[in-house]
């Protein structure tokens, strides 16, 4: 509960700064509307905003799911053999290096103007963080456990060690990757919508901007921000629930 109050206080503080900028800078409403004007627009257009938010949220969630699946598999593949690594690692790095907004028009042309291209964008943008983090975790399985496994296995059983030791041990690293993914997946979805779409918060922002409905554009922006923050907290809370054995904060020294 305390966290909620703190969050609301931060929000109020930001709103105050916003109002100050508008008042002191004497900014006209078509450049930066006052916070209350935006809130009023949010209220007025609540139905439309909710509908578009739903579309964008769906793109983000499906993109995250697909990206996580691909990332999980890719990290395992990278650890599998040096040959695979040689082929897959450049692809992985390229996926991060190529700015996603440059690929966006191509994706839209290939996958159409529906959900497909937006999901692909979100998947692309999270692929590297998820894969890199999980791979890192897999590579750094604590030596002691691997030693124990080696002694216990008269014949090496790679998959058994992966399944029982390496993968569970690397799940916290995957979690870190997922937290980053939650923060950037919305960017991918919105970029996809800017390039070509008929629904979603990105589309709405573009539409409102060109019709000089600046208050609506900012309202959509606020909803998008809320969506992104909400997603992050859901992912974070879920990870804490799914990995209860992983300490949230670094352990203090044993007193026993």
């Amino acid at each position: 509960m305390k966290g909620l109050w703190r969050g609301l206080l931060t929000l109020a503080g930001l709103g105050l700064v916003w109002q100050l900028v508008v008042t002191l800078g004497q900014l006209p409403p078509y450049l930066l509307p006052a916070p209350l004007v935006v809130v009023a627009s949010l209220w007025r257009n609540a139905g439309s905003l909710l509908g578009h938010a739903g579309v964008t949220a769906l793109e983000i969630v499906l993109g995250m799911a697909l990206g996580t699946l691909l990332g999980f598999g890719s990290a395992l593949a990278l650890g599998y053999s040096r040959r695979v690594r040689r082929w897959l690692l450049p692809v992985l790095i390229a996926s991060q290096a190529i700015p996603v907004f440059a690929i966006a028009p191509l994706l839209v042309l290939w996958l159409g103007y529906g959900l497909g291209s937006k999901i692909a964008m979100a998947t692309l943008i999270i692929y590297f963080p998820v894969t890199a983090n999980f791979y890192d975790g897999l590579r750094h399985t604590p030596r002691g456990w691997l030693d124990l496994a080696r002694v216990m296995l008269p014949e090496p059983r790679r998959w058994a060690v992966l399944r029982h030791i390496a993968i569970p041990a690397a799940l916290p690293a995957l979690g870190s990757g997922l937290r980053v993914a939650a923060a950037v997946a919305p960017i991918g979805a919105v970029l996809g919508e800017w390039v070509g779409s008929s629904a979603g918060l990105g589309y709405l922002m573009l539409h409102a901007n060109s019709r000089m409905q600046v208050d609506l554009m900012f309202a959509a922006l606020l909803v998008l921000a809320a969506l992104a923050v909400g997603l992050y907290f859901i992912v974070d809370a879920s990870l804490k629930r799914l990995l209860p054995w992983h300490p949230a904060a670094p352990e203090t020294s044993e007193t026993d």
Partner: protein
Amino acid sequence: MSPPVAAIPCTMTPAPLAVSLRAARLVYSGLTLFDGLDLELTGGCFTCLLGPSGIGKTSLLRLLAGLTAIGISGELRGDDGLPLTGRVAYMAQQDLLLPWLSVLDNVTLGRRLRGERPDRERALQLLTRVGLADCARARPDTLSGGMRQRAALARTLMEDRPVVLMDEPFSGLDALTRLRLQALAAELLAGRTVLLVTHDPLEALRLGDHVLVMNGRPATLSTLPDLPGVPPRDPGDPAVQAAYRAILRLLGAA
């Protein structure tokens, strides 16, 4: 207090297996730590390997465990002439319990890794023997250090191997817990061929049927005269005290 050993049905201890290592050699970062080293472990007995830190005792133990790295070599076999692979159980200074598994699942880890069905009944019996019957479902992070090593001991027993290799398993614990666990280990591992590596002379003298001292550069092994009495010996025993003084002189500490 754990119930007397006779009241709990215990598994048959496997036939004692002696271990012989010939011509062990370790070169690390250009430095020869030991060369031409021979080591004999008497079947069914507790051998303690004592030595200062960095001498190479852990490397020697890892050689026996099959966890060899580059730079180490030697001829290793049991007294039946066969290699040791699959006949060794390993216990380290860290408990090596997997934090996402319950204590019970940790104890049965070996079977599951090998793709066999875990024997939960036996695991529970072993947990009772080490005094952790109530903690079977708990996660390791809820246990104290001493309890975690007991769980590790149960896991080691679960493996039911003729040879048990222990690398300073109790050095991370406080003195009282250490003494208790030493006694427990001596009791539960009776009849198996055990190599316990330690830097604590008292521990070696308490537990060892035979005590080897590793010292010098390059390192060599010296065998101490066997002490009277059955392990775990009383630390206050004058024979133990005398041997302790002798060791300190040998290691150049007194």
